[in-house]
């Protein structure tokens, strides 16, 4: 193999087929049409251009199943740690209490302030649901963060959007709430021409979008990064034979994937926390008297 033809060599090697994108959902009970259009190897038939998946292909996928399992884990966790709570906590209770305290006092009370108790269940459910799904990306069995499927992130972001607008409208009425959120006091009136569209955009449009995209993009990119380092590294280690440089680079990239993996553990927690704190923050700003 002549030097300088490294790229070519990679292409000429035994190119592995990873099948469909790892972010694509797989039906648990694939219909006949789906199986035909997603062959294990080779090209799908041309007739698949207009293929419409059956409803079971859409509603019973591995990722939906994973989200349902995450919800079950969250519910089980809370129901188990909150059983027979004692004034003097046991070890089991202490774990639950630690988490509950963090969300109740550290997030709800500190951010929302007065009347925070109403929002504690929402924040508890939100944080634990996100964090469990995120940790699914780093733990065996699934090895896939649910929120790297953007639909789940949109769902939670829309719910948070509905929540903070609903509590704001309930407290101030629609007109007054809209005015409060778009017309900050102490601004000279000509500036309102500029301020009102900007405030409207930032408070009603970009908030849910950034909420969803922040969560989604962090997990998507994290998972993508790990996939690249692991898959690429493995490929360099094993598929490119008789090339020490490739093999060393492959080994290094697998090692780096461990570090990224550790980082992803942090990101998984952090993104759940940020989503929860921001939701609380939006509720707080919708309820606040001034601004």
């Amino acid at each position: 193999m002549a030097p300088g033809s490294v790229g070519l060599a990679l292409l000429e090697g035994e190119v592995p087929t990873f099948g469909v994108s790892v972010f694509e959902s797989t039906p648990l009970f694939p219909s006949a049409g789906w199986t035909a259009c997603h062959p294990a190897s080779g090209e799908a038939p041309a007739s698949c251009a207009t293929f419409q998946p059956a409803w079971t292909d859409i509603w019973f996928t591995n990722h939906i199943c994973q989200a349902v399992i995450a919800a079950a884990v969250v519910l089980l966790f809370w129901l188990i740690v909150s059983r027979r709570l004692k004034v003097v906590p046991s070890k089991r209770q202490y774990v639950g209490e630690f988490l509950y305290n963090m969300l109740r006092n550290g997030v709800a009370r500190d951010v929302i302030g007065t009347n925070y108790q109403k929002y504690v269940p929402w924040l508890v459910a939100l944080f634990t649901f996100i964090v469990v799904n995120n940790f699914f990306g780093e733990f065996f069995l699934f090895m896939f963060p649910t929120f790297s499927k953007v639909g789940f992130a949109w769902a939670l972001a829309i719910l948070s959007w509905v929540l903070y607008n609903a509590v704001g409208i309930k407290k101030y009425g629609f007109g007054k709430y809209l005015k409060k959120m778009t017309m900050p006091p102490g601004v000279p009136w000509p500036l309102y021409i500029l301020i009102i569209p900007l405030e409207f955009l930032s408070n009603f449009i970009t908030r849910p979008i950034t909420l969803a995209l922040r969560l989604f993009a962090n997990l998507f990119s994290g998972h993508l990064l790990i996939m690249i380092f692991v898959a690429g590294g493995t490929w360099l280690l094993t598929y490119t034979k008789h090339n020490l440089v490739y093999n060393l680079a492959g080994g290094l990239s697998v090692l780096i994937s461990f570090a990224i993996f550790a980082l992803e553990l942090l990101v998984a927690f952090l993104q759940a926390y940020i989503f929860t704190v921001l939701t609380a923050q939006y509720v707080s700003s919708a309820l606040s008297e001034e601004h």
Partner: protein
Amino acid sequence: MTPLEGPLGPLLPEHISEFVVGIILFVIIYLVVRKVVVPRFETMYADRTAAISGGMEKAEQAQAEAQAALAAYKQKMAGADDEAAQIREAAKATGAQIQAEMRTEAEQEASRIVTTARAQVDAERSHAVEALRKDVGTMATVLAGKILGESLDDDARVARTVDGFIATLEDVPAR
């Protein structure tokens, strides 16, 4: 073309099912947490607060009891002091009264003795004066009779002479 390769790439859900299932799952978790988990924790917190403040109340009660006991003791001590003072006062008063009574009694006795003595002296004096008068009269008469050699048996005259003599004696100014 799969949805992940659409114009928005992975920013659009691959299937709407993700979005719907996400909302349903979250709402279920939210409802269960609100209905079961949060009330359990809040009840426990309330119990804990009650237990802690109950302990504090108990301690406060004990402290109040101790203070009451101390106050009662102090009051008792003060009472004892008062009583002692009263007893002392009473004793003093009684002593003074007894002293006064005794003084009065002694004074009365003394004055009685003096009065009696004076009366006795007066009586004796008048008795003596009477006797003297009688004796002196007689003696003087006898003496005068002897001197004059005449019998002065006329009592009326004698008495007059004697009285006259004594009157001259009494006229002598006192020294």
